[in-house]
């Protein structure tokens, strides 16, 4: 077995040094009735060729997004990742290191995460960010917990245009806790009056920006309304590339931003692993969940970085911890950070402009088709179309022709018949003119 260095001779010598005559003596504490005497009914070991063949056959049964005109978004956006990103994150010193518990020999991970925290704080427009969380949806649930801790209130208002998975994850995470979830109804394209739902028991309002339907709205007035009532504004962002072009949530008054950072540095991966970004104001940092890296100096006076404020975390605080979270999304955060370093200010804003320009062009072309109506007034790289027929079967038809046309809203909201004709279409820099032509042509035929 190629991964196991011990030889039969080694094993015999080691057993002799231990002073036992076989492995049975070392497993004696496992109740005999539960000890397996033979092998389980699973395949035997395989060489690389066989494993590649087996998994390659599974991969070949899928329609790869890159092999089709692809316009899927709804919280996961297909972007081009520069080759340097993957080469760097596969360096063994990053890939095969653990959580940086010994800072003297983990400065690489620590410094890169400190840089990540800085980048995440910068693009969200907030003061500080943690070293990442599982994904955007779980970061959003953590933000709700945090708002309750800060305000000592338990009423949580969720926008109707918050991604349905985020709504479900928040509802699940608070299911057995005192939080009361008030979910606004979903009316795509219409402005919600969330301010009217805030009262003096409200811990926070959670909105998405751009929202689930791609719409961009100014959140300043909502932030003021939250703050007037002693509540916090949590802003979820599922497409961080938008932040290259639009005003940051922090600038509009958000107290916490919970974002999906997958768009930078990370592949689609059929939904995971992704990258939760979590940023907040300075004054709330001790209520923040997750791992934090801080700057300090060593005994020689040289600048260095350490894990800090660990007393918030489960391994010290146990049942009183801010969260039960133990891992972060370290390697995904590194990929994000490298991609954003490559882009820099100029590249990040240009990437955002490209996305927006393509989306504007495609939205206008599609809206010209008979039976297609653009729901949005303002959008970044994703918009919602109202069709004259249910969107889900149309998407299946086009998929059969090798076109991934978009995400039918009914896939995420199957219970609301009024949403059945809505299609979410996302356009990124990866879409070519030919891809867009193919979508417009096939939509024209299918409607």
């Amino acid at each position: 077995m190629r991964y196991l260095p011990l030889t039969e001779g080694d094993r015999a010598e080691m057993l002799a040094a231990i002073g036992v005559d076989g492995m049975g003596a070392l497993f004696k504490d496992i109740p005999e009735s539960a000890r397996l005497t033979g092998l389980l009914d699973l395949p035997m070991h395989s060489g690389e060729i066989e494993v590649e063949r087996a998994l390659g056959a599974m991969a070949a049964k899928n329609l790869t997004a890159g092999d089709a005109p692809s316009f899927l978004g709804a919280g996961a956006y297909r972007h081009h990742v520069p080759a340097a990103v993957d080469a760097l994150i596969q360096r063994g010193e990053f890939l095969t290191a653990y959580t940086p518990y010994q800072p003297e020999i983990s400065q690489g991970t620590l410094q890169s995460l400190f840089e990540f925290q800085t980048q995440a704080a910068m693009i969200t427009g907030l003061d500080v960010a943690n070293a990442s969380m599982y994904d955007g949806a779980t970061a959003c649930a953590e933000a709700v917990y945090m708002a309750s801790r800060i305000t000592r209130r338990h009423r949580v208002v969720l926008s109707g245009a918050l991604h349905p998975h985020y709504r479900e994850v928040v509802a699940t995470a608070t299911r057995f806790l005192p939080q009361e979830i008030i979910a606004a109804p979903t009316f795509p394209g219409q402005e919600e009056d969330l301010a009217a739902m805030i009262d003096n028991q409200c811990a926070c309002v959670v909105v998405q920006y751009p929202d689930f339907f791609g719409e961009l709205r100014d959140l300043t007035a909502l932030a003021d309304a939250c703050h007037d009532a002693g509540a916090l504004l949590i802003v979820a962002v599922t497409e961080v590339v938008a932040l290259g072009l639009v005003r940051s949530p922090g600038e509009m008054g958000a107290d916490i931003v919970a974002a999906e950072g997958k768009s930078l540095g990370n592949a689609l991966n059929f939904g995971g692993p992704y990258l939760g970004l979590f940023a907040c104001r300075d004054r709330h940092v001790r209520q923040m969940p997750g791992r934090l890296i801080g700057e300090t100096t060593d005994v020689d006076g040289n600048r260095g970085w350490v894990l800090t404020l660990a007393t918030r975390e489960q391994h010290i605080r146990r049942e009183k911890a801010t969260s039960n979270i133990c891992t972060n999304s370290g390697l995904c955060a590194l990929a994000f950070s490298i991609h954003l370093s490559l882009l820099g200010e100029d590249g990040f804003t240009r990437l955002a402009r490209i996305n927006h320009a393509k989306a504007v062009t495609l939205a206008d072309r599609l809206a010209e088709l008979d039976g297609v109506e653009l729901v949005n007034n303002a959008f970044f790289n994703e918009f919602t179309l109202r069709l004259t027929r249910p969107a889900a079967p149309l998407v299946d038809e086009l998929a059969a022709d090798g076109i991934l046309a978009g995400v039918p809203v009914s896939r995420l909201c199957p219970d609301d018949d009024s949403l059945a004709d809505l299609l979410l279409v996302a356009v990124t820099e990866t879409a070519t003119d030919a891809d867009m032509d193919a979508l417009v042509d096939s939509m024209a035929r299918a409607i």
Partner: protein
Amino acid sequence: MSDLKYTKDHEWVRVEGDAAIIGISDFAQEQLGDVVFVELPAIGKQFKQGDEAAVIESVKAASEVYAPVGGEVVEINLPLGDNPGLVNEAPTGEGWFLKIRISDTSELDALMDENAYQKFTQG
């Protein structure tokens, strides 16, 4: 012999009139190591004896400070916000935490005096 009284959770109390000044013992600060953060209650807050009154954090530990006697918080040691190291430097002096107006002085009776506390920590 000091005028301090101690709890088994390593808080001390100094009675001044109807008020109790509260902090943590020298033994406790040494066990915790460098104190990095202290969270104090709001003035006016009411505590029963044994309620969680404050939180103290070192680099690698966090623990609660319990009210040795019940009452209302009348003053807190604001300088601890910027300089939590005072708890290490002068735990029974400038590193005090809060002042409570005592609601029932008989609650003091169960506390240890300096001698008893020394024996308790050595035992």
